[in-house]
């Protein structure tokens, strides 16, 4: 489903990704773990096509198509979703309205007519329950005045409504208390299925207690240092990232 081959990328001229190879098949959940500054978020942004992240080598294929040639909105319309680490506020634009615009943009891309208002309403309500979201959040402006937890929950809610084929979760667990973490995980687990792939980027093993991955990769200095099953996450929890890092100081900070 998603194939990353020898991916090198720079940000402001600095090389952050240093030859990543990773294949995620439909139905799989892969976790990317690693210390701060290892390139986790850069990987997420490169996949989503954010400006300023320059691919210098390698390729990313999404269902065989060259992802890197597509504009960010085309990637989204093709079924790629990024749950942002720092969701953006859009004052004055109601959450519900934003979501409908997104759903209709994707439908238009697929050559479908705009979503029926009643169908959309039903879908929204069903998905709201999934992430235990209050109806008042629909009327509030996108992420404006949301708490950290509400923002993350809103990302998962958007994902649940948009039903992408492939989702990248960029440190969705950071800053969440255990209840919010569980809600986010429930949302993701409900969407898991044979047609859908996930790349879950996290700093801590904690999230993976709830979203049990099929594969775990350790990203260090822009490269995958080790891959394994879900037990690898537990091992990292005990030992920290120090083993994988030439800069022990940074690893200690990261593990703290």
């Amino acid at each position: 489903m998603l194939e990353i081959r020898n991916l090198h990328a720079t940000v402001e001229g600095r090389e952050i990704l240093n030859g990543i190879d990773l294949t995620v098949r439909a139905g799989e959940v892969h976790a990317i773990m690693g210390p701060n500054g290892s390139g986790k978020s850069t990987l997420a942004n490169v996949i989503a096509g954010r400006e300023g992240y320059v691919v210098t080598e390698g390729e990313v294929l999404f269902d065989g198509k060259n992802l890197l040639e597509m504009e960010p909105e085309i990637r989204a319309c093709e079924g790629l979703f990024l749950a942002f680490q720092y969701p953006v506020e859009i004052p004055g634009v109601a959450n519900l309205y934003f979501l409908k615009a997104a759903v209709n943009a994707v439908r238009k891309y697929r050559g479908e007519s705009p979503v029926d208002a009643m169908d959309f309403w039903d879908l929204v309500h069903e998905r709201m329950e999934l992430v235990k979201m209050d109806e008042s959040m629909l009327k509030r402006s996108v992420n404006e005045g949301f708490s950290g937890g509400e923002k993350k929950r809103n990302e998962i809610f958007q994902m649940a409504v948009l039903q992408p084929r492939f989702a990248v979760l960029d440190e969705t667990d950071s800053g969440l208390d255990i209840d919010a973490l569980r809600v986010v995980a429930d949302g993701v687990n409900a969407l898991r299925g044979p047609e859908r792939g996930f790349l879950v980027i996290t700093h801590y093993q904690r999230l993976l207690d709830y979203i049990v991955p099929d594969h775990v990769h350790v990203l260090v200095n822009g490269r995958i240092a080790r891959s394994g099953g879900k037990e690898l996450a537990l091992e990292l929890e005990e030992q920290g990232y120090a083993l994988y890092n030439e800069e022990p100081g940074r690893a200690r900070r990261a593990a703290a």
Partner: protein
Amino acid sequence: MSDSTQALERLAASDYKYGFVTDIEQETVPPGLNEDVIRLISAKKEEPDWLLEWRLQAFRFWLTQTEPTWARVNYPPIDYQAISYYAAPKQKGDGPKSLDEIDPELRRTYEKLGIPLAEQAILAGVAVDAVFDSVSVATSYKGKLAEKGIIFCSFSEAVREHPELVKKYLGSVVPYRDNFYATLNSAVFSDGSFVYIPPGVRCPMELSTYFRINASNTGQFERTLIVADEGAYVSYLEGCTAPMRDENQLHAAVVELVALDNATIKYSTVQNWYPGDANGKGGIYNFVTKRGLCKGRDSKISWTQVETGSAITWKYPSCILRGENSVGEFYSVALTRDYQQADTGTKMIHMGKNTRSTIVSKGISAGHGQNAYRGLVKILPTAENARNHSQCDSLLMGDRCGAHTFPYIEVQNPTAQVEHEASTSKISEDQLFYCKQRGISAEDAVSLIVNGFCKEVFKELPMEFAVEAQKLIELKLEGSVG
């Protein structure tokens, strides 16, 4: 330059959708202004002597005045003697008795503008008093309104049918000596709308007038007077589009509102006069004086405006809060792009006790557009416990436009509470990327974000108008992304 910055830059490229000229025979007075011209206008309208005298007083005063230069706008000097001060569509016989009798060409013009007069009026429940150039040619729903004692007619008709009301209130809020353009208007005003809501009556529908400039080189001098008697309520809508023309056209309207005890007047405007071309050639000069008087206690006047057109906008819809507990509101969106200039805002003059005012101004500048908010909040010594809250937000698109804020606050009573907030922002790359990541194109993202920015103002507009305003803003931002 980043993609999205380029996208924003390209906003300046979209065409004026309503650029066409209707071929209707005009009865036009030759260019120039003197007492004879004023006598001619007055005679054509069969006006009483007192009104002619009022016009002449205004004209004589105007001759002693010079154009104001304090606004932050630039334009070449206007030759007032090159302007024709009267134009009326020629009609067969006595004029139309119903909508069916209206010149088909004129009807088509309105249809092109998306205003099928009769049908839309019926469907939308809106009574339309259409002003085509200077003379009102169609009035609908009159009967229904008349049942409630509501008067909604052209200004000329009001002068004929209700001279006592016109005489009582004309110039009572904007005296003919008020300012250069208001004085000129007082001398030469052609037509406009008149509304009177009797005591205790709530006007059952939104009243609406569509203005349109059509005749080349003909100044437009509309005069509108709205009086809400004790306990009355009225919501009035004004929307404008103008056809494409090369010459600059002067538009100097005057709107006066009077609210007596417990009365409420809501006045909404969507202004889309021709803004000139992408190089700043042509376009309407919109020099308008709009003012409301909260004369009675517990009265309320609310201005909402969406200003997207005109080469130059010079406009300060204001409230004089004379009655105790009276309320003034001003909600404004002003969008300038290409070489458009807007100097707009409001004046809130607090005279009565416990008077309150709210100002929400949203300025959007794109291309080389220049947008200035100019506002005065004045608390007079008599205004115990007056309150004001002002909020002025500016949104910049690209790096060649400008936003300016000139808030004036004069407080002469120590019990007053006056708050002023201001912000200037740009559409951020983060916001655009967030929208794009959800599948929304850059162009749609920009209009989404801009509409969000304007929401506080749009929500004050009547429903159908809010949709229209939103579409208009989207139209103005069109052609941005390839």
